[in-house]
């Protein structure tokens, strides 16, 4: 079909618009007020969304993938990397999610950051936040719209950078607003962990290039059919390392919980809805490679499933409202990776989309809760309600301080409930449909994955129930919770949109209709999953049981202030493990980080400095040279050479004494000597 009348040539603007917004804020933002800065950022993101919609319209007509080349990038010999955008149903789906959710979160962030910068007493930093956030949109767009693995990689690292910048946004504080390196540590951890993943990505790219002479999607997928199995296995494993880094899978998930140090809109956008799903996108994109290797699929699905369960267990033991959501995100990402790993690409993408809706909703609502608590805290400080222990640092995100907030923050409460139910996967919310599709596929392909995921689903419903009971029900466990205040409309309005999507997002891929599946089928070969009533029923029952259990534990007899978690008594040391994230961070620190630091110190101090620089240089080279010169000076020079020279010197001195008389200082006698020379020379020339 003709592409001339369609809007494909506009696709670069999906990146240009955010860049323009970013540059505007960077240059003239200083002169604007907060609303102006926010407006620029929101317009940039919204403009990208409009472009994405145009692309969706175009690809809806054209169906075939379209590449739009902008410029050369690196061309050496066979290596030909370009800045080329690719429009197909998969990339357009991602564009829509990223720019759509991104725009909503931009709007929310205007309200959120206005208050956040005031709590931190640093209002100029407002502008910086939107520069970073728009930078993220830019990079994410590059990631999803690239036509080759290398352009994808540019976005891949770029979102890592924006994530670093935004996690460390309050780089001079810790999460509680005390001066500290804690936030910047979290940022650094995220970046470095991602780099480990990028290492895998790079290896995959190198293998592709040397095996297939290209990293373009089309070329690679065309060539991969003839590739040897070991090549495919290594490529997929390497890619999986990258996925583990970006999408927070075992063993590289550790950065994501710490990433909650960033402001809440960041957690929602980057660390829940979009960036972390890049790994899922990557596997889906590489579907032609993954489907060729059963081993790769098995490994990927297993990693995903294990991550889902493992993170869910930790989520149960957390007290910080955002930490619970963070581990929940890891767990849900595990669901997606498991799905795409076992070849259920449509299901994975479906869950990616619905998860973007409801997890963004949950995070933003959690942000609203935290700000509500902050406001309460502020209110107390201002009105001199010096409660007991008020001087000590107050953690507005600690669920143990909350309770009964549904009265203070009714809008947020209802929005949060929608998100919770969607995440728990109850009919007919979006989460139900997508999670169910994954479970149904797993049931057929990898049964062990199905069982693990079901367990994870059970825990999901449980910890979400626990959270809701603790936060919104019961009685306030801290004075601050009494004074919590509802958030303004600019924050709640985007939440309502997201709540709507969480409610009805399931309509995207209803069983029987398979809208999303057939849409994606234009890009990747997938078969629509069967709706399995048995699986759906089981999972619903599991979720309900879990919620009931949590009701028993946390609602029937609400938690009192200072009371330990009831699970602690029941589970004992297991719960201690959950509380402490199974000591994985400590393990990494002990096994890897400390060892590397020691090694570096050893190399730097002992090997390089003491041994090589000081000892070898000074004691061996320099001292050896000195010894040699002394040896030459004393026995050789004084003993032998000197005697020779003494004789020489004596004779020279003798003749010099005589010759000295010639040097009498009288100009005329010098002139006479010159004359003598002249006569001699001329005489010689003539006689010769």
């Amino acid at each position, binding site marked *: 079909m003709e592409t001339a009348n369609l809007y494909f040539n506009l696709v670069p603007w999906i990146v240009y618009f955010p860049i323009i917004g970013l540059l505007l804020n960077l240059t003239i933002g200083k002169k604007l007020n907060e609303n102006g800065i926010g407006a620029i950022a929101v317009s940039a993101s919204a403009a990208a969304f409009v472009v994405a919609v145009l692309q969706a319209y175009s690809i809806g007509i054209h169906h075939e993938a379209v590449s739009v080349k902008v410029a050369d990038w690196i061309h050496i010999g066979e290596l030909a990397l370009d800045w080329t955008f690719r429009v197909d149903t998969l990339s357009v789906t991602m564009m829509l999610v990223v720019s759509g959710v991104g725009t909503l979160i931009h709007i929310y962030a205007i309200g959120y950051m206005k208050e956040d910068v005031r709590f931190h007493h640093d209002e100029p930093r407002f502008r910086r936040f939107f520069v970073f956030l728009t930078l993220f949109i830019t990079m994410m767009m590059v990631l999803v719209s690239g036509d080759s693995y290398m352009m994808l990689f540019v976005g891949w690292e770029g979102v890592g950078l924006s994530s670093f910048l935004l996690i460390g946004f309050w780089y001079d504080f810790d999460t509680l607003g005390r001066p500290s390196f804690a936030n910047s540590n979290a940022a650094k951890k995220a970046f470095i962990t991602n780099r480990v993943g990028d290492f895998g990505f790079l290896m995959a790219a190198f293998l592709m290039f040397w095996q297939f002479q290209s990293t373009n999607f089309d070329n690679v997928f065309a060539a991969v059919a003839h590739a040897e199995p070991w090549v495919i296995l290594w490529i997929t494993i390497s890619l999986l390392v990258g996925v583990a880094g970006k999408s927070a899978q075992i063993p590289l998930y550790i950065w994501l919980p710490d990433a909650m140090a960033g402001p809440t809109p960041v957690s929602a956008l980057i660390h829940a809805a979009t960036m972390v799903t890049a790994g899922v996108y990557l596997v889906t994109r590489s579907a032609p490679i993954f489907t060729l290797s059963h081993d790769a699929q098995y490994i990927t699905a297993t990693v995903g499933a294990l991550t889902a369960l493992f993170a869910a267990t930790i989520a149960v033991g957390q007290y910080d409202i955002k930490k619970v959501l963070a581990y929940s995100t890891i767990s849900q990402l595990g669901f997606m990776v498991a799905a795409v790993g076992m070849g259920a690409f449509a299901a994975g993408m479906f869950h990616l989309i619905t998860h973007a809706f409801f997890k963004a909703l949950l995070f933003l609502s959690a942000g609203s809760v935290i700000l509500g608590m902050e406001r309460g805290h502020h209110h107390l400080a201002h009105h001199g309600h010096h409660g007991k222990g008020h001087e000590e640092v107050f953690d507005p995100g600690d669920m143990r301080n909350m309770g009964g907030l549904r009265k203070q923050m009714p809008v947020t409460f209802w929005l949060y409930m929608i998100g919770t139910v969607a995440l728990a996967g109850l009919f007919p919310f979006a989460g139900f449909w997508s999670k169910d599709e994954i479970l149904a596929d797993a049931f057929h392909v990898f049964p062990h994955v199905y069982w693990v995921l079901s367990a994870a689903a059970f825990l999901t419903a449980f910890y979400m129930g626990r959270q809701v009971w603790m936060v919104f029900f019961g009685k306030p466990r801290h004075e601050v919770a009494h004074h919590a205040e509802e958030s303004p409309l600019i924050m709640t309005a985007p939440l309502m949109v997201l709540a709507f999507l969480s409610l009805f997002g399931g309509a995207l891929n209803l069983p029987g209709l398979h809208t999303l599946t057939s849409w994606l089928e234009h890009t990747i070969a997938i078969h629509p999953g069967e709706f399995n009533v048995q699986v759906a029923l089981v999972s619903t029952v599991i979720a309900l049981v879990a919620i009931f259990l949590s009701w028993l534990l946390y609602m029937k007899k609400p938690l009192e202030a200072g009371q330990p978690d009831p699970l602690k008594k029941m589970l004992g040391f297991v719960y201690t493990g959950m509380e402490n994230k199974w000591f994985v961070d400590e393990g990494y620190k002990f096994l890897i980080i400390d060892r590397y630091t020691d090694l570096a110190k050893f190399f730097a101090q002992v090997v390089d400095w003491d041994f090589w620089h000081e000892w070898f240089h000074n004691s061996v080279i320099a001292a050896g040279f000195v010894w040699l010169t002394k040896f030459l000076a004393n026995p050789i020079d004084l003993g032998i050479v000197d005697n020779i020279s003494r004789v020489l010197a004596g004779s020279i001195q003798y003749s010099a004494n005589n010759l000295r008389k010639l040097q009498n200082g009288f100009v005329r006698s010098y002139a*006479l000597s010159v*004359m*003598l020379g002249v*006569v001699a020379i*001329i*005489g010689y020339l*003539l006689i010769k």
Partner: protein
Amino acid sequence: MTGELILFFVLALIAVTTAVGMLVSKNAVYAALYLVLNFATVAIFYLMLGSPFIALSQVTVYGGAIMVLFLFVIMLLGAENIQAEITLQKAWPAIVLTVALLGLMIWMAATQVPVVGLSAESTLADAAPQPLAFSLFSTYLLPFEITSFLLLVAMIGAIVLTKQDKKGSGK
């Protein structure tokens, strides 16, 4: 003997006489004046050799500038009557050597150089200042410019050397 030759010998005699006069005169002023005369004679030789430009330069530069400078300095220093004892006992090596040199030079001039007659008439090609100036400003441009630089340096040097040291005189 042509008139030309007679002129040559007369002038040569004057030149040698003035040279020796300069050599032996006790008064430096006289020495300088002898030398002026000598230079003038040489200038006439230049004319005879068809080099009017050089002859005029000789008169202006040597006669006009250099010798005036000499007289200036002599009078400035009041050095006209400095005794110039010439003791032949001490001077004999110098005289012997010079005579030897003179002998060598005359022998060279007589035997090593072809006998070519030089007429006092000059052709336009070698006499007119114009072609001389042309080659001075084309072929020899760089040395010419360097000479100007040399003169400049000499001037600065002379000024620096004769400048009164204020600190020294203040003592």
